[in-house]
């Protein structure tokens, strides 16, 4: 198995762990964490393709990862802000309790 395949498999595993967490956790914060993990799996793919790609001098993978990290930070800030706002309303972060549109 060549190094690129190993990286991709690791990244796929990371993505699946994140997906499983996002789909099955009750706590909204941990669902957000699962989504962050999925983003991280994508970042690992970018770095792996950049490292083993034909033209590493172009730095495309590195750039994409840096931007992706920045966007993930913005996403975490807004997401946690929304969770706080919802918590103030329903006094819970349990997603199973948030099944009505009426506040």
């Amino acid at each position, binding site marked *: 198995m*060549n*190094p690129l*395949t*190993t*990286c991709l*498999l*690791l990244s*796929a595993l*990371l*993505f*699946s*762990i*994140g*997906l*499983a*967490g*996002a*789909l*099955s956790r*009750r*706590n909204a*914060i*941990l669902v*957000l*964490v*699962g989504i*962050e*993990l999925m983003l*991280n799996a994508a*970042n*690992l793919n970018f*770095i792996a393709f950049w*490292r*083993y*790609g*034909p033209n*590493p001098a172009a*730095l495309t*993978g*590195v*750039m994409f*990862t*840096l*931007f992706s*990290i920045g*966007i993930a*930070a*913005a996403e*975490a*800030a*807004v997401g*946690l*802000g929304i*969770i*706080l*706002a919802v*918590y103030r309303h329903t006094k819970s*972060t*349990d*997603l199973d309790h948030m099944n009505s549109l009426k506040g």
Partner: protein
Amino acid sequence: MSIVFFILAALTITGTAAAMALRNAVHCILALTLGFVGLAALYLQLGAQFVGFTQIMVYIGAVAILAVFAIMMTRSAGPHPQPAFSRTWRTGTLIAVIVFAVLAYAISHTTLAPATLPQPEVTVNQIGDTLMHQYALPLEILGLLLTAALIGAVIVAMPAKQEAPQ
């Protein structure tokens, strides 16, 4: 692939899996930081030094701390009367397993020809140059996005103004 890579991969997978499986939310975040450290070390291993340190700085220094603050403010780390997983966790895990199976099948049945180049030497100057010339516009947009997210997060999380007593 060196033995170091597999150790780091095991660390990452253990950390992230624990982050998704543990009951206590704070334990989850602490396990998550372990996973992020492993991932950052993997980036270093792959020759992306700048990205690795940025990963530690942003994910551990900012995102993990932010999540911890959110857990503290929503009191979701106390004793849990109800289960940590939602009612549909079997379906969720099944979907994740199927996704992994499909991805793994696709990856292992693709003939990838990685270029066996030596470890690329990326200096910070190169990254800076590329960021300021070729990617100047995305950088500006990212700055705008972060500013908007900062203001938006503050406004969303701000307590609604109390109505003045009549």
